[in-house]
């Protein structure tokens, strides 16, 4: 039996903030060990070439340089393994930690220099001579397939998914809508760049790596395996993390290199990525081109969707293997009834930075594509963007809704949802009829203004399991040891709120441990909006278990029935308010070591939150600039543990979504030279570009798959931003289907305006 919620559901302040605000944060660069060596990576200056030789002689003569490693020094270390969606046919395309016979993108690690300080290391790196025979690069993912180089093909695999009779539906269609759409190459760019500091303790035979994030346990197991160690004498330790977004915390060459070097040289080895490196070395994402067709009836109901897309994965398959194209393919149908569906996702290699997941991976892309299709159908049938969505939404009565598709090893079944209700609520929040009237009036007066709507289904709470151990220490403090990671999202606060309610203590007295492989043996980490759902329920289970134990042990000491006792604010009291009480501290001291419980939450299905975005924009017809005048988000979270944290997740996601819609793009020239290597060229939205927003969090569809009804919050802010901005621009131009490519840069928009005779 549990006390009524006191903390869950409230926007209590973040426990994480105090050390951060007091300057006590410990980010990767803050970690140092006496005698450490600094590592600098020598990166390929060309996009494609045969690596004929490496001459490190000059670098080695520089005072302060300890060693230089090239492919020969790490020949025994296998390429980086797949963490998710690792199709067998992709294995030959994994990335080696240092280039072998070929270099395949600008920025590929070719050698590493170890030196006394980072300045010398960088001086020496410049002296390492690379003899590379330049080859023609492959820069486009669509078009004919062919050899990527002597050993590889440009198309390692095709993701195919389907259900229903697609051809029959197209044959019977009233009309067919066909679109060609593309999404630009961009990615998560956390404030803190990557970093890895490895240290080998020979006396204890323990190798540790600091600077871990996201998935420390998986990385511990696999880095250990790659360098030939046992997982039991290796630890990954997470400090504060300045943003993850999917890209931070995967195994990259540098993580393996510092570990291998620390072990080999028996010296601490520190590597801190600089910003230029980050923009060419860390995972890129998103770049896809879709050719999509939809069969519809006379009323605009979707009968079938047939999509073929090209996924530009860059030069290697990294830890995510086929995850992004797989998610794009599996989540494309979204909140609509699509009776028949077929998709072929062509994974293509190009001589660019390799790709991985980025906040709402695959969904930012396929939401753009799907919602563009909905808008095109609306135009074809002659109804508005809201009505076309209403006609096609999956009804609440159809829940749970089996999509007959699989992804991430799970069967996709939308667990709960009332999509039409959220659409109504969000439009009401946006003042839709009044907005429409005012936009119409302004358009009549010559302004280019318009609004759009986009909807989506998110996925979250990926299993298969999470284990949590909760312990009341002798000083009465509560410790919750988890197998998740904190990338800044508020894990400590949310877990503390859940544990506090179950135990009957103040959430601020709870210490939540995360990201430490030496504290708990297994952990799935933080990705796929999984933490609050999976770890949250595991925390509740373990806390409830501990509560039972506390009451049982206290009942013995207090000579009463456990059922007669309650825990209120850290004190064990009688429910009838009579007689003596005892504090948790007293009990912990009376039964040292006994006040601990562990439990595991298992889940074989994901849970599916959903949302609606509404945007109104104004186009500057002289310059092609786009200003966002209004932005409203409706999001059903099932149950919000901390509404402000949910809103913050959504707000941050929106900023990133806008980046991909309007600003951010990794541009390459024809030779494969990256042109977006500084913040002057890779344009992240700042506080001046992100509009005021109104966020409506609803709890109309709690998940039936966990007792609290939880769903995840991480990705719904980013998911449909490209789609809704495109719709709003089309509306401002009064020309449906105009926007087919993201990002909508001012030059592109101006050129469209001129081509279409609008200006």
């Amino acid at each position, binding site marked *: 039996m549990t006390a009524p919620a006191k903390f869950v559901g409230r926007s209590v302040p973040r426990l994480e903030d105090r050390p951060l605000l007091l300057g006590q944060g410990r980010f990767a660069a803050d970690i140092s060990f006496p005698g450490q060596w600094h590592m600098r990576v020598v990166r390929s200056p060309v996009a494609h070439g045969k690596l004929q030789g490496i001459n490190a002689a000059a670098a080695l003569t520089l005072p302060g340089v300890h060693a230089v490693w090239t492919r020969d020094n790490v020949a025994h270390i296998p390429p980086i393994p797949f963490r998710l969606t690792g199709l067998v046919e992709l294995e030959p395309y994994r990335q080696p930690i240092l280039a072998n016979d070929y270099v395949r993108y600008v920025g590929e690690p070719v050698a590493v220099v170890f030196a006394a300080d*980072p*300045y010398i290391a*960088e*001086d020496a790196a*410049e002296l390492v001579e690379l003899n590379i025979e330049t080859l023609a690069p492959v820069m486009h993912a669509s078009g004919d397939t062919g050899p990527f180089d002597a050993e590889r093909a440009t198309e390692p695999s095709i993701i195919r998914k389907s259900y229903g009779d697609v051809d029959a539906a197209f044959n019977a269609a009233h009309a067919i809508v066909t679109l060609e759409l593309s999404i630009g190459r961009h990615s998560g760019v956390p404030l803190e760049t990557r970093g890895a500091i490895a240290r080998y303790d020979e006396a204890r035979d323990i190798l540790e790596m600091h600077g871990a994030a996201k998935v420390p346990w998986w990385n511990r197991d696999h880095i250990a395996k790659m360098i030939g160690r046992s997982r039991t004498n290796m630890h990954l330790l997470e400090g504060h993390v300045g943003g993850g977004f999917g890209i931070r915390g995967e195994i990259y060459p540098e993580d393996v290199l510092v570990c291998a070097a620390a072990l080999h040289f028996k010296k601490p080895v520190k590597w801190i990525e*600089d*910003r*230029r*490196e980050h923009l060419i070395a860390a995972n890129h994402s998103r770049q896809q081109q879709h050719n999509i067709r939809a069969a519809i009836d006379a009323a605009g109901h979707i009968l079938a969707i047939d999509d073929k897309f090209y996924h530009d994965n860059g030069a290697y398959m990294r830890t995510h293997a086929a995850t992004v194209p797989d998610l794009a393919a599996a989540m494309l149908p979204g909140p609509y009834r699509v009776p028949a569906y077929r998709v072929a996702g062509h994974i293509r290699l190009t001589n660019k930075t390799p790709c991985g997941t980025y906040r709402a991976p695959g969904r930012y892309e396929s939401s753009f594509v799907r919602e563009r299709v909905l808008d095109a159908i609306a135009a074809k049938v002659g109804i508005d963007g809201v009505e076309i969505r209403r006609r096609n939404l999956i009804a609440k009565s159809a829940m749970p809704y089996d999509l007959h598709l699989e992804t991430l090893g799970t069967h996709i079944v939308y667990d709960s949802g009332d999509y039409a209700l959220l659409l109504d609520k969000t439009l009401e929040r946006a003042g839709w009829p009044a907005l429409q009237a005012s936009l119409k009036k302004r358009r009549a007066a010559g302004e280019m203004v318009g609004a759009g709507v986009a909807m989506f289904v998110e996925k979250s709470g990926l299993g298969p399991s999470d284990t949590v151990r909760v312990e009341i220490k002798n000083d009465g403090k509560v410790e919750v040891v988890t197998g998740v990671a904190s990338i800044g999202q508020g894990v400590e606060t949310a877990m503390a709120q859940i544990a506090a309610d179950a135990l009957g203590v103040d959430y601020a007295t709870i210490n939540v441990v995360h990201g430490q492989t030496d504290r708990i043996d297994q952990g799935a980490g933080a990705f796929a909006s999984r933490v609050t759902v999976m770890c949250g329920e595991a925390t509740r289970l373990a806390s409830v278990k501990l509560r039972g134990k506390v009451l049982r042990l206290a009942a013995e000491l207090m000579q009463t029935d456990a059922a007669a006792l309650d825990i209120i604010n850290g004190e064990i009291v009688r429910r009838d308010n009579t007689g003596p009480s005892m504090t948790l501290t007293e009990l912990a001291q009376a039964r040292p070591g006994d006040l601990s419980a562990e439990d595991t939450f298992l889940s074989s299905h994901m849970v599916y939150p959903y949302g609606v975005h509404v945007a109104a924009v104004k186009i500057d017809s*002289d*310059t*092609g*600039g786009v200003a966002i005048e209004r932005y409203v988000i409706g999001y059903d979270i099932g149950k919000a543990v901390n509404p402000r944290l949910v809103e913050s997740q959504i707000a941050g996601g929106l900023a990133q979504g806008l980046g991909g819609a309007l*600003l951010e793009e990794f*541009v390459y*020239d024809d030779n494969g030279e990256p*042109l977006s290597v*500084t913040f*002057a060229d890779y*344009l992240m*939205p*700042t506080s*001046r*570009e992100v509009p005021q927003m109104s966020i409506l969090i609803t709890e109309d569809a709690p998940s039936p798959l966990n007792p609290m009804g939880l769903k995840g919050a991480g990705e719904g802010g980013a998911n449909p931003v490209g789609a809704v901005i495109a719709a709003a621009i089309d509306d401002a131009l009064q020309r449906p289907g105009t926007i087919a490519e993201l990002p909508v*840069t*001012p*030059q592109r928009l*101006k*050129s469209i305006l001129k081509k279409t005779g609008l200006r």
Partner: protein
Amino acid sequence: MKPAPFVRHVPRTLQQALAMLSQLAGQDGRILAGGQSLVPIMAFRLAKPAHLIDINEIAGLDRLDSDGTALTIGARVRHAAFHGPAVDNPLAALLSYVARHIAHYPIRMRGTFCGSLAHADPASEWCLTAATLGATMIAKSQRGEREIAAADFFEGIMSTALAEDELLAEVRLPLLAADAKFGFNEFSRRAGDFAMASSLVTYRVADGKISEARIGVGGAESSPRRIEEAESALNGQPPGDPAFRAAALAASDAVDPLEDHQTNAEYRRDLVRAVVRRALEHSLT
């Protein structure tokens, strides 16, 4: 992104600085002013000066005063000095309006007016201001002192008439007539970014007609400059939409546009047309 090795010298007097410059210029020595352009370039190792002569401790270089005809701006005067009125003349309002468009607040606290001119980024607001208003540059070296007119100063992208051993000690900006009008506009994809095109205009109105028009365009060519064709389209016309549009069109036709991956020639011309018209419209507000 760690700079290559360098030696930093900190002269206390102008004489010391000029002596060091004359000695070190040939050995890859450079002035360090606000560091807001030079330090990032060094971090990317696009520049590897062996010596930096830091002028931030030199007394007297922080001059910011007017003799009634021109405002003199010393080499240590920061962008932020123009946030408020720097002189009792309409020029003050012009400078503080323009200053707000330079980078971001922290950068304006360090970066210098003269450093911007010496750096000569085509999109620099101060370079545009100097070119439009006809500034005079005072260059000093051990060899002596000389004046360089703005029209002769900018020689191309990040290239000026300053010799290696010369310090841009001061810039003189002519004051504006009491009834002068000014307007400024720039376009960039984000607030605080270097402009993809910018325009500064000044003129006077006599008998309802524009005279003494100056129309400067920045960010569009290798150096900012006055566009004579646009000025002719404006002089003698009443201020207002027809004249402004004609001048904007003349400016966009006259420029030789810079191209980069986010701006082709045609788009750059479109932007020039937009910013010139808007600068002129701004002059009426």
